[in-house]
């Protein structure tokens, strides 16, 4: 029973991280119909940004959030304005944007190898190893903080999308861009901001991961694949669905430990991905675009 509670708690904590990784990917796909393969590279970049700010300037990773989010937002804006903007969209642009953004990822990764070498790095803080009792098991303070941010982030995102003119315009562009220009929405501006937001969410996820896991320039590939699973599972673009899907993936992965050898647990997500694509291609909750 104790074991069960332990696993349930760690599944919930992990789910928060998965959801944070997936929002950015889902947002960009939902609005621009572009699969951002550079997502993994930005997660890695977010981890290194946090590491630099912590190691060189002594900035606590949680206080570094605004900076990392700001820098990766600008990185996203730049990627869109310089590269993605010029590509065809939708089905026609599929191969072109996949290759281009994969290239962006390779550039980010190799830049990181050049700057930081391939050694594993960690962000260690005073509270990295601290744990508090919760539901009869011990829970890392840091993981709780990650979960808290993982809950606040989608709430803030949802508030932005539902309550502000900008957010409504983002959802409207996702559904019908022509109608948007007819009411005076600068669609290119919305695309730019959306790409920035999605990239910033990846940066945030990278920073949060770096407080838990060790990382090197190759970091982010597994994270990208897990983001795919969550996005497909959750039905593209639904903030709520993404959260639930992240929980499903985390629970299945964590509890798979009970029945599968540990080297196979990583495959669980992909088996789920295949099953969902075959049996419920619209995601667990049906396909809605940022509705």
């Amino acid at each position: 029973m104790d074991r069960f509670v332990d696993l349930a708690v760690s599944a919930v904590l992990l789910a928060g991280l998965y959801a944070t990784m997936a929002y950015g990917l889902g947002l960009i796909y939902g609005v621009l119909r572009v699969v951002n393969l550079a997502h993994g590279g930005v997660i890695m970049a977010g981890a290194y940004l946090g590491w630099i700010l912590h190691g060189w300037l002594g900035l606590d990773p949680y206080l570094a959030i605004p900076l990392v989010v700001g820098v990766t937002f600008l990185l996203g804006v730049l990627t869109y304005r310089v590269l993605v903007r010029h590509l065809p969209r939708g089905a026609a642009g599929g191969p072109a944007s996949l290759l281009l953004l994969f290239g962006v990822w390779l550039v980010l990764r190799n830049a990181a190898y050049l700057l930081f070498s391939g050694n594993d790095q960690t962000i260690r803080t005073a509270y990295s190893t601290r744990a508090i009792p919760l539901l009869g098991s011990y829970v890392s303070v840091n993981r709780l903080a990650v979960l808290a941010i993982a809950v606040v982030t989608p709430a803030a995102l949802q508030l932005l999308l539902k309550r502000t003119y900008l957010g409504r315009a983002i959802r409207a562009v996702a559904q019908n861009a022509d109608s948007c220009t007819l009411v005076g929405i600068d669609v290119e501006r919305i695309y730019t901001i959306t790409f920035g937001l999605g990239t910033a969410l990846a940066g945030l996820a990278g920073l949060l991961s770096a407080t838990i896991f060790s990382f090197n320039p190759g970091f982010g590939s597994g994270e990208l694949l897990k983001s795919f699973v969550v996005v497909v599972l959750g039905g593209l673009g639904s903030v709520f669905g993404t959260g639930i899907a992240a929980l499903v993936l985390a629970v299945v992965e964590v509890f798979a430990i009970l029945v599968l050898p540990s080297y196979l647990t990583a495959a669980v997500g992909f088996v789920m991905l295949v099953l969902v694509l075959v049996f419920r291609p619209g995601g667990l909750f049906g396909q809605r675009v940022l509705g």
Partner: protein
Amino acid sequence: MSEPLLSVDAIDVFYGDIQVLYGLSLEVREGEIVTLLGSNGAGKTTTLRAVSGLRRPRAGDIRFRGKSLVGLPAAGRAELGIALVPEGRDLWAQLTVRENLDLGAYHPRVRANAARNLERVFTMFPRLSERSGQIAGSLSGGEQQMCAIGRALMGEPVLLMLDEPSLGLAPILVDQVMRTVSDLHAQGMTVLLVEQNLRKALEVAQRGTVIETGRVRLEGTSAELSANPEIRTAYLGL
């Protein structure tokens, strides 16, 4: 004679290699209802898309209040007060009625007046007020048309262009849409109306332009066009 509100001057419009409009010209004066008539594929929708900036002419000029619109993107034209209610409504189906209307007041010039304009739209279409929390895609065809017109009105248009507003509506709703157009006109709105329902269109409009395969075929007042024997046989089935 003063400068017309809108003048389309010999525009050529292409879709890829296929030419749809051939030197098409058209004028709409302040306070008029002008109707653009013609059969399917004649280029009516394309003309409206060119005026609203969704489709760029390869040649010719479009002027609004005497200033050329060439080079001005669609979003900027909306700010000038050029509104299009597109064919098939093109609402944001997964946004609520209220969100659709709110976004109609997106550009800065009208955002401050959004509350007042929403009140006006709800007074004009009480049905929308009842359904304001509903997803726009769940509305009936007539309600969607009201919502699309309401969205355009939220932007305080100077020129309202309607593309086949009666398409797919029951006759009673067609009458209601036409009455709305007349009411708006009575309040001083300038309207460019594209219709397949020629009879209804000529009832509300003062002038009409008939286009055929991308060229102007006939022009005249509604009375002249209604009396034209060619129109009577070809379009009115008399």
